[in-house]
């Protein structure tokens, strides 16, 4: 292994390094910080599709889609905390609940407009996030994960006991989104937009989609600038990041704050859409679903949590409503059991084949088609993965 620098370089270039060839082929480096020019047309197309989607959906499917976009906001938040900053949290259900009850208190009890109570739900949840974030300074990995499980249980207990705010175990009504008299989301009302009629489900869908888009843009910007970089550095090597000048406390707490803000907004919309919330709604099961969404979608990416949400929040409903699945309860396999068995098995099989989740798959397809990997905005937030045998490990060279 005694080589001149030049030789080394040539040698290295001969090695099949994924992701490098295309850039080098085109000569030079992309130093332009705003890569929006190259921003994926694919995702833009997907967004347009999402906007047009309700035209093809039945009302039942539309309500499922609404739950997906609302859930995806919270999943995106968890993606920041767990996917980018590497702090595994199973506490998302707690922050969803805080958001929902904030909406209830401000929107219903104090009569605030939704323009105010939606962000307020995020802010209050974010404040709780800021309080809880510092635990991540002391606890690592699964210790943190299980402490956040405790947070969910303690949260449910507090929700049950704080009767004046949450209605106690009996639950309470949540306000419907009402911006103005012509833009009122309550059931039975519609919005007429020059020939288009949008009903209750549709309005919630579009509000959810709007907030999801804004959040995704925010998170994407974050992922490619200073804050997001610091989070990923902390995820990879906490101590080294610290020696290089990254403020661990600030980075982790920021991740918690962003994550719980988005969870708060998501919870408020969710509760408002269902119009009713009780403490049992914010259980560990919900947290696990959110974790599932970001894992299935692909950790450490912006689009992963959104794609994962489609699977986790949508798939069971789709399977259950397949035409050949019997809805009858008269003995035999119930549709719900069938759906969750199929769902569980699908998740197992999919992750055995594709452990990097849907984004791993999405990344692979363009590569197969010979496109540049750089066309994906998530390139730099890649989840940890083992490279192919062609890649030289340091140990091999020593």
């Amino acid at each position, binding site marked *: 292994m005694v080589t001149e620098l030049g030789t080394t370089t040539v040698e290295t270039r001969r090695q099949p390094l994924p992701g490098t060839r295309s850039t080098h082929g085109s000569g030079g480096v992309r130093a332009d910080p705003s890569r929006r020019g190259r921003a994926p047309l694919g995702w833009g197309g997907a967004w347009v599709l999402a906007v047009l989607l309700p035209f093809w959906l039945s009302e039942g499917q539309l309500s499922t889609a609404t739950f997906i976009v609302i859930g995806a906001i919270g999943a995106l938040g968890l993606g920041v905390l767990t996917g980018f900053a590497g702090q595994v949290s199973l506490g998302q259900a707690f922050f969803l609940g805080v958001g929902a009850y904030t909406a209830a208190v401000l929107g219903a009890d104090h009569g605030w407009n939704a323009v105010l109570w939606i962000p307020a739900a995020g802010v209050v949840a974010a404040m709780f996030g800021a309080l809880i974030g510092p635990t991540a300074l*002391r*606890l*690592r990995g*699964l*210790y943190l*994960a*299980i*402490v956040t*499980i*405790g947070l969910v*249980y*303690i949260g449910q*207990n*507090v929700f*049950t*006991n704080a009767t004046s705010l949450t209605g106690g*175990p009996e639950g309470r009504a949540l306000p419907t989104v009402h911006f103005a008299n012509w833009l009122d989301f309550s059931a039975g009302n519609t919005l007429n937009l020059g020939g288009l009629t949008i009903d209750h489900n549709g309005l919630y869908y579009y509000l959810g989609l709007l907030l999801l888009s804004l959040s995704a843009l925010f998170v994407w910007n974050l992922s490619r600038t200073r804050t997001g970089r610091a989070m990923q550095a902390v995820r990879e090597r906490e*101590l*080294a990041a610290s*020696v290089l000048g990254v403020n661990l406390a600030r980075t982790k707490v920021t991740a918690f704050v962003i994550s719980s803000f988005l969870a708060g907004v998501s919870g408020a919309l969710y509760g408002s859409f269902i119009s009713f919330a009780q403490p049992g709604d914010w259980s*560990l099961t919900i947290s*696990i679903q959110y*974790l*599932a969404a970001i*894992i*299935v979608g692909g*950790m450490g990416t912006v689009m992963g949590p959104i794609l994962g949400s489609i699977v986790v929040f949508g798939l069971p409903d789709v399977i259950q409503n397949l035409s050949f699945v019997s809805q009858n309860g008269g003995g035999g*396999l*119930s549709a*719900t*059991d*069938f759906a*969750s*068995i199929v*769902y*569980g*098995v*699908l*998740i*197992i099989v999919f*992750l*055995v084949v594709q*452990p*990097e*989740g849907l984004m791993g798959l999405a990344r692979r397809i363009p590569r197969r088609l010979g496109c540049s990997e750089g066309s994906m905005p998530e390139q730099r937030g890649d*989840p*940890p*993965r*083992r490279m192919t045998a062609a890649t030289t490990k340091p140990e091999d060279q020593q």
Partner: protein
Amino acid sequence: MTQFWQLLFEGFSLGCVYALIALAFTVIYRSSGVINFAQGAMLLAGAYVISWLTVNEGVPFFGAVAIAIVALALSGVAFQLLLLRRVATQRPIFAVVMITIGLGTALTSGVDAVFGSSTRVLGDPWGSTALHAAGLVFDWVKLWAIVFVAVVLAAFYVLDRHSRYGLAMRATASDEEAALAVGIPVARVQALTWAIAGSLAVLAGLFLSGYPSSPNPSLGESALTAFPAIILGGLGSPVGAVVGGILIGLIEVLAQGYDPSWLGNNFYEIAPYIVMIGVLLAKPYGLFGVRPAERL
């Protein structure tokens, strides 16, 4: 005072069952770094298989327990070798965690689909019989739980400390790649841990659904109660799992009996978590956990 001793007994017996669940978590965690979210579903399946064999098929109780243990252990091994093994070498540990979540979902629904969601009869020989002594009541099933757990723990200790596989398990736990390099059959060791987890699930399911409880669909959630136990004791420490489990059982039952009303309803539910958080503030890696070495 009678009440206190009675609760102490109930808590200790429950804690022993938690210790089994926590040990199952720990064994898998040690060998692969994964928290097995399907543990609750395995426990549920174990209880229902026993109930089905005794009540519907007329198999003698201990025969049914043995069959259930073999079945669950083999299923665990198959799951590890056929599925998990294919991903375990990849770095995203989350994928493996997620696979156990998927398994839990499918298994829970499978149990529901096969056995229905009604409460069942376990078919154990103890039923509602109890030993009455010193003004206290000791349900036989709870006494046997303590005895069984003691035997299982002793057996585990022997396996862990004095057998070839125990050493292999500990080596795999500390460094999978190094273990592989010195010729330890890591795949076989990890399969063994799943077999152990499956067997422990059956025993835990058995004692959780004994009198006065019964096999019912919410048993799976009880496994979640063992989470604070494994953290309290320290992840990856079998001793910690046992101590943590017993502590959690005692805390839960005593808090149930004595929670003052100013703490609100259902304080006992969160008491284990509050104790756990308290311990972690003082000892971030639990009572018996070891701080992982951090290198630059």
